[in-house]
């Protein structure tokens, strides 16, 4: 079952055509929003208005957006150091995201978290963990809490393939399977752990790992937002009905460096490879082309969405730049309740 699954045209069976169209367009918009957001982040770094160590999600948008489209607002996610896309896909506002990245009071974490640590409990985002694999137990515990409370909330644990090196992933999969927890482990395989190809650090097949714990696993084309959505819907349905965890490997690619400061990259990955993904496998283009060819939208509509996403992001960055820094007294706040 670990073959690449193509979009289930049937996945919309219970959705009306209009509802489906609205969803695809929203997903298209969200992907653009993430793309423009990350472009701005890169710019803020390059113009020395923001410190380094921001890890951009550009290229991987379809994964967060496709998965979160299958979630409700009260479902939980946990995120990673490369987390901007997860936050936005789960419903965070760009202005407060920028404010956080710029260390401002109005940021999601009052400027105390930063790029690698955004949490937004209102949208179910339990927080980004900059310790690779660090969310695995926490996400599993959140799933345990919803099962315990007899809520049908689902938890998604996002992580990069590098986290498969950490033992905790296997420990939680074992437990989640035994306890039939409503959790989906989403492995975003963007091919590199920092500057090393994953094949040099990761033996064997990724999806097979989950199967050893009797957790159903699917390997998905992570550039195809509809395929991601369809798989996520299946996994969410399984979790909501108490059948237990699932594991998704989403094959994807990051367009920029490991972090914003990683600019000359040719020694670890060829520019042709980057070019291939950007021109042939771009998730936004792929969805846009499909929307037009299926006559869900015309090019004017898509251009409008693009413009809207762009101005939304531009307004957000202005908000962040002009927002005030936290008061000095904030430094000692919130250590304890």
């Amino acid at each position, binding site marked *: 079952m670990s073959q690449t699954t193509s979009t289930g045209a049937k996945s919309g069976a219970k959705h009306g055509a209009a509802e489906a169209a609205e969803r695809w367009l929203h997903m298209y918009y969200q992907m653009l929003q993430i793309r423009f957001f990350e472009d701005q982040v890169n710019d803020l770094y390059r113009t020395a208005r923001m*410190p380094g160590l921001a890890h951009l999600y550009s290229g991987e948008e379809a994964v967060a957006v496709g998965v979160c489209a299958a979630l409700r607002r009260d479902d939980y996610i946990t995120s990673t150091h490369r987390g901007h896309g997860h936050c936005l896909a789960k419903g965070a506002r760009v202005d407060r995201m920028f404010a956080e990245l710029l260390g401002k009071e109005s940021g999601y974490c009052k400027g105390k978290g930063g790029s690698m640590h955004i949490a937004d409990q209102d949208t179910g985002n339990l927080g980004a963990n900059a310790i690779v694999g660090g969310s695995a137990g926490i996400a599993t515990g959140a799933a345990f809490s919803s099962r315990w409370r007899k809520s049908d909330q689902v938890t998604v644990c996002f992580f990069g393939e590098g986290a498969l090196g950490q033992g905790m992933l296997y420990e939680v999969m074992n437990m989640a399977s035994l306890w039939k927890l409503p959790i989906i482990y989403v492995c975003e395989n963007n091919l590199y752990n920092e500057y090393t190809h994953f094949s040099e650090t990761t033996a064997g097949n990724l999806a097979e790992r989950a199967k050893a714990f009797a957790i159903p696993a699917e390997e998905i084309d992570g550039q195809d937002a509809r395929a991601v959505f369809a798989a996520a819907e299946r996994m969410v349905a399984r979790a909501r009905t108490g059948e237990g965890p699932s594991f998704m490997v989403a094959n994807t690619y990051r367009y920029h460096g490991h972090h914003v400061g990683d600019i000359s990259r040719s020694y670890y990955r060829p520019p042709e490879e980057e070019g291939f993904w950007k021109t042939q496998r771009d998730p936004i283009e792929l969805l846009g082309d499909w929307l037009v060819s299926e006559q869900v939208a015309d090019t004017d509509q898509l251009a409008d969405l693009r413009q809207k996403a762009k101005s939304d992001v531009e307004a957000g960055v202005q908000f962040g730049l002009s927002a005030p820094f936290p008061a*000095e007294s904030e430094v000692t706040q919130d250590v304890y309740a």
Partner: protein
Amino acid sequence: MRTITYRDALREAIAEEMRRNDRVYIMGEDIAGYGGTYAVTKGLFEEFGEKRVKDTPLAEEIIIGTAIGSAIGGLRPIAELMTMNFSLLASDLIINSAAKFRYMFGGQPSIPMVIRMPGGGGAQRGAQHSQMLESMFAHIPGLKLVMPATPYDAKGMLKSAIRDEDPILFVEHELLYSVKGEVPDEGEEYTVPLNRGIVRREGKDVTLVTFSRMMHICLQAAEELAKEGIEAEVIDLRSIRPIDLDLVLESLRKTNRVVVAEEGWKYYGTGQGIAALIYEHGFDWLDAPIGHVTGKDVPMPYSKSLEQLALPARNDVIAAVKAIVPQPAGAR
């Protein structure tokens, strides 16, 4: 003598020891092809090859676990942890195994292993990437822990550490890698012991006991204080465990006043441990309570404005000194 960076000094130490002993090898995340997050291992892969410069999976626990096992098996591993923050994932193996085996097994295994890792904040890396956690490990019998502040010591102490028969935590600082200092010419053999502090600046009015990056801040503070007629003696401990207490007490007998300055947190940490030792062994020479400069008692905030407030700075050292040193005549 030449002037080189702390980073280059570390690399030279590793390369020289690898040439000297073919059982020495280094492993860590992204250290081979990439040359390490802080570029310490750049070029080593080219010289020593895959067998001795090894990229590992992203798993701190196995880096330390295999380092311990291979050390028992006769190799001399240098394990690089990308940052000290990630040592927490391997802390069980460091504390429950590396530190204990020699004693628990009646003196049997030697674990000649060096764990290199940078700690510290100041680069807006956020709460999980800015910690100075040496206290946690310095607490543990069976571990040695050193924190060189200069390129000279970085090279000399790393060479000693690689030759040592015990597990050594070698704590660097993210903001020290580009600091330059004098180091003997390449090939000119020297080592620095792992249990000796050093007086960096002489003074008669107060002793500043410090280590790692904070040492440089103390030196700056001492220069400022000198303009106001206060002469501070600055002791760079270099080694946290074992600690060179004799050097501290010798200085105390001259100055009768001490300020301990560190980047880490206040409670139950290195500085308090040092202060307690001074009270225990040097109480009669103290003319004032020991001053203590630390980072704020909070996780590191990300925002630049807050991070600067959370980190101990030159002015904090100056204020702590002035609080216990009588102001010279004429000064306000």
